[in-house]
Each structure stands twice: as structure tokens, then as C-alpha cells.
């Protein structure tokens, strides 16, 4: 093998290290990146800042929401989504069971929490409301910051816009401990069930696409492998993520259980060549096995990972459709966030998808 020169890359991600970023950690741990001659460091920060970093070519890659790409392009930032990371839009509305909320229409007149009137949760909410012939004025929208679980459980709001892979779990946990308004359970209206919107994707800029397509290709290939491995072997992904995400729940027992699960899953994948459904079933099986051995506290972040995998899993990873981009743009236009014409097809590309 020829010795390639190593390329240093800083990869931008939002928020803080989190188990939801497991595929990134898997790609790093399994040397998918270094084998491709990429020396990648991860940087976390504010999403808008990240977009500007990529737009100015200070960074070449980042994990950014699709609607951010559209809005940023509308304001002259040459960013392009090249790999759709989430296949389902991760936002939804969590509501308590048995409190008279059966369908989104029942939200009318109720107090609904939201981090703020911006970002993916707001866009998702509007899409969901639009799809149900509601408007923002029909509900009492309350800006509560990223405190949904807390505010919801003290009854500050009757429903809340959340990331469906995370907050409902936290709330469920509290319900089980009897710390949540005496609710018996929660349900979720998932935006993805009502509207096909693009969500997080790997984003680069036009300059890199034009001048260094090989780099884009190499990067995507490595991330895709990480994503694939995470979907197929969540126990392994969780273990690898624990090296990057501080404070991820972990005990010696849990670790050895995961290690055992990871290696048996590897054998299963090798020998049974299972299809998507088989693998999904194996994940369910693993979860119920673990639930028998460990209490909910320890499992919570692992369940977040499994929930997130459901958002990733697809027949063809990374692919984006013009329809979903158009749908997203339509929602943004209805909110008057996007005005005027924008060439939606320029916002994304499937050209670099690995085989």
C-alpha cells in the first residue's frame, strides 16, 4: 500500500460529546479515518458558528441540520449537505397519556414547551402543525430553553417539543420513579410521521467539493462505515463512545455484558449475514436482555443510542431526496424564514455516497 500524506482535519459537531455521535467515535476507534490518511480531531460548538466556520472554509466538514443548510445558503453561505445522516426527522412532541391528548389536533389551546422559536425543534413543530391544519396561534407556545424534561415534569407545560430519541426516555424514567406529575406514561407525535423533512447531515462547502472531491469521498466513506457498524453492533458502538463521552453510564458488569454482546453480535453478523430486520430484531433482543440484568439508570444512554439508531437506519444510508429537501424548504417558506427563490437542489448532493 502506498503511504499517503496525512491530512489534518477538524470536524465540527454541535453540542457536547454525546452517545448520539457514536458513529463518529466508531470511525475513529476503528481507524477508518486514519486508514484513509485522515487525522481528524473533533470540535464541538454552536451550530451557527459551525456553519460559518464551514462556509468560510475554516473547517471543511461538520454535522449540521439540513434546514440550517437551506437557511445558510439563502444567506449566501456556500455549504452543501453531502450525506444525510438522519433518515427520520428527530423532533416530536411529547405529551402525557390519559390527559385528553390523542392526536396533534388536541394540542390546540394547550401550553406547549419549546426550546425557543428557532432551530430544528421550531421547524419541526411548524411542519407538524401545518400537516394537521393547525397554526402556531392555536397553541400556547412557551419558550423554555433546553429544559423540557424538567419543565414538563413539574407541570409547567402540558406538552413539549423534544428530540424524540432522548427527552421522552428521560421523562419516562421520571414517571417510573413517580417524579412526574403523577403521569402514567407519555406518547410522542413524531414529525417524521407527518412530514418528510431532512435532518442532520454531513456538510461541507462548495470549495472543498470543487477542489478536493477525493477528500470528501474519503471522509464520507469512513463516516459511513462508522454509521453502519453502529447500527449493526450498538453494544460495540456504546463501548467505543464511552471513550469519548465522559460520564457515560458504565460499570464493570455493564462493560463485560456489552463486551460479550458485542463479540457475539460480530459473530452473528459474520455468520448469519442478517438483513436489516434481523439486525433490528437483534437490537431489541439485546435491550430486553440488558433490561433483565441492569436497572434503568444505567441503561438510559444505551437506550438513547438505540432510539437514535432507529432514526439512522435505512435501506440506503446517506441518500437524500429532492422531495424531502423541497418539503423542508416549503416549511421554512411557510414560516417566512426562507423568502424568495432558492435552488434547493444545490443544497445537497448524493454524488459522494459510498457504494
Amino acid at each position, binding site marked *: 500500500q502506498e503511504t499517503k500524506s496525512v491530512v489534518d482535519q477538524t470536524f465540527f459537531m454541535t453540542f457536547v460529546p454525546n452517545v448520539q455521535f457514536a458513529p463518529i467515535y466508531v470511525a475513529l476507534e476503528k481507524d477508518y479515518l486514519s486508514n484513509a490518511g485522515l487525522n481528524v480531531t473533533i470540535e464541538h460548538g454552536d451550530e*451557527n458558528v459551525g456553519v*460559518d466556520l464551514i462556509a468560510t472554509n475554516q473547517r471543511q466538514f461538520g454535522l449540521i441540520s439540513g434546514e440550517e443548510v437551506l*437557511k445558510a445558503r439563502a*444567506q449566501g453561505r456556500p455549504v452543501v449537505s453531502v450525506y444525510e445522516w438522519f433518515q427520520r426527522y428527530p423532533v416530536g412532541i411529547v405529551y402525557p397519556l390519559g390527559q385528553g391528548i390523542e392526536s396533534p389536533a388536541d394540542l390546540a389551546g394547550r401550553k406547549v414547551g419549546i426550546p*425557543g422559536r*428557532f*432551530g430544528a425543534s421550531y421547524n419541526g413543530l411548524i411542519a407538524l402543525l401545518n400537516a394537521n391544519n393547525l397554526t402556531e396561534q392555536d397553541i400556547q407556545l412557551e*419558550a423554555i430553553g433546553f429544559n423540557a424534561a*424538567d*419543565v414538563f415534569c413539574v407541570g409547567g407545560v402540558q406538552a413539549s417539543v423534544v428530540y424524540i430519541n432522548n427527552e421522552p426516555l428521560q421523562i419516562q424514567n421520571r414517571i417510573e420513579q413517580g417524579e412526574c406529575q403523577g403521569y402514567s406514561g407519555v406518547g410522542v407525535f413524531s414529525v417524521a410521521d407527518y412530514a418528510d423533512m431532512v435532518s442532520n447531515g454531513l456538510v461541507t462547502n462548495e470549495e472543498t467539493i470543487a477542489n478536493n472531491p477525493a477528500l470528501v469521498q474519503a471522509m464520507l466513506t469512513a463516516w459511513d462505515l462508522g454509521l453502519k457498524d453502529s447500527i449493526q453492533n450498538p453494544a460495540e458502538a456504546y463501548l467505543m463512545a464511552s471513550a469519548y463521552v465522559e460520564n457515560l453510564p458504565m460499570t464493570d458488569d455493564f462493560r463485560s455484558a456489552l463486551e460479550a454482546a458485542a463479540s457475539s453480535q460480530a459473530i452473528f453478523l459474520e455468520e448469519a449475514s442478517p438483513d436489516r430486520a434481523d439486525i433490528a430484531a437483534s437490537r431489541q433482543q439485546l435491550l430486553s436482555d440488558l433490561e433483565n440484568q441492569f436497572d434503568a439508570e444505567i441503561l438510559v444512554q444505551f437506550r438513547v443510542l438505540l432510539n437514535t439508531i432507529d432514526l439512522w437506519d435505512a435501506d440506503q444510508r446517506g441518500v437524500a431526496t429532492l422531495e424531502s429537501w423541497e418539503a423542508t424548504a416549503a416549511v421554512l417558506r411557510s414560516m417566512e424564514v426562507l423568502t424568495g427563490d432558492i435552488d434547493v437542489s444545490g443544497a445537497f448532493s448524493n454524488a459522494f455516497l459510498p457504494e
Partner: protein
Amino acid sequence: MAQEKPLTSAISYTVAKPVPSWHLGLVLRRFVPWITVLVVLIVWQAITMLQLIQPFLIPAPGDVLNEAILVLQNGTLWVHIQATMGPVFAGLGVGISLAVALGYCIARFPLLEDILSPLIIALQSTPVVAYAPLLVIWFGSGPNSKIITSALIVFFPMLLNTVAGLRNVPPGLRDLMRSLRATPWQTFTRLEVPAAMPVLMSGLKISATLAVIGAVVGEFISANAGLGFLINLARSQYDTPLVFVAVLTLTVLARLLYSLAAWLEYRALYWQRHGRYLPK
């Protein structure tokens, strides 16, 4: 005569000069800040014209102006200004009154400082995000949370400056008031407040701008209106000109508040402009 220039300022006490003060000069001085603003505008224009920084990071002044006119005409800006400034004034009022009251008690009963300092410093140094959930739960996303964040940030500098000011009251004057059997209230209003005024006024000027920051921080945590909200909104839409409009509006408002404080200081320290202050 080339006298050595004394270290003075318009607001400070000056060596009474036997030469008439050049009043035209004073008038001209009023324009100096505007010259700075002008220079900044020119530099800004130059940066955007020479394309030194991408326009989506720093938009052209003209674009910002257009945006400003737009939001001024449709009334949006005014709504957000009101949503921010209400809590700013309330926060200033609450923060300053509490700080001065507590500062007085602390200067008077040093033991109180020992008792309260752990709490006060905890309050001061705890990042707002840490108690954001409590704020939102207890006070909602209306103006109350903003008033509290604003009052909190104002409180500490004002408290310390109150204590520093009160402790600097000349003991000779304190003895005078004691010998005249002044009541604590008389001592407070006739001696302590005027004597601490220079430091109190410095605290007021600090507070004036901090209060704005505090309210904006409150708006970042949860709000439905206000300039901080507008910044977040514009940022989420990558509408840099609107970000600039909101930020510049904040700057102007802070500057106005500061000028108000500086004017109060000028009025309150009138006596420093009379002759030299030589404690005799």
C-alpha cells in the same frame, strides 16, 4: 504658560484655573464620540468593500441600514426594544436597591459579610444555565426571568462598590455626625451617600451596561421577544444584517443607559467642580 498638565477631567475636580475655560472647546468635545463612530463606520465600509471578510460574517453598512429601516418601519424592532428595556430598567432598579441596602448593612455590621459572603459569591459565580430550569419553572418565559438575570448581574458590582464607598467615608466626618447625634438615617443621607457617591456612581455606570447583558442572557435562556431573542432568531436564519441591527440596537441602548448614568454622576458630583477638594 506651559504648566504641567494636572491629572484631571471634565467630571473630576480640577485645580481652579485662573484662565477662562475655552467654552468652544467644551462644545467641540461633544462631537468627539461621533468622530469615533464615523471612523468605525468608515473602517467597516472599507472592510466590506475590500472584501477582507466574507459579507455573511460582516455585512456591508448599507445592508444593515436597509434592514434597520425595514424592521423600524414594520415596528418589529420597537417591540423587541420594549421587551428588553422593560426588564433592564426593572432589573437595574431591583439589583441596585438590594445591593445598596445590603451593602449598607454589610458596611455597618461586618459580621453580616462573613455570614452572607458564601451565599452572595455563590449567587454571583453560578452560571445562569445552572439555575435556568428553576428560573423558567418559577418565573416562566415572560419578563420576570429577565428581570432576575438582569438584577443578579447588577447586584454584585453594585454591592462591592457600595461597601467600598461607605468604607471610604472620612472618619473625621463620621465623628462629626456622631457628635451631632445624627440618626442612622441622617448619617446615611447626609454623609454616607454623598461621600460614597463617586464610587457609587462608578458602580452605577458598570451596572447600566451589565443590566443590558443580564436581560439578554435571560432572553437567550427563554424568551418570546426581546433583542436577545431577535439575535438568536436572526442567527438561526443566518440573517447577519438583522443580527447586526439587533446588536447595534443593544449597543446604542447600552450607550444611552451609560450616558444617563454618566449624566447622573456629573450632576451628583457637582461639588467636585468647585475649587480643589482639599480636606481641611
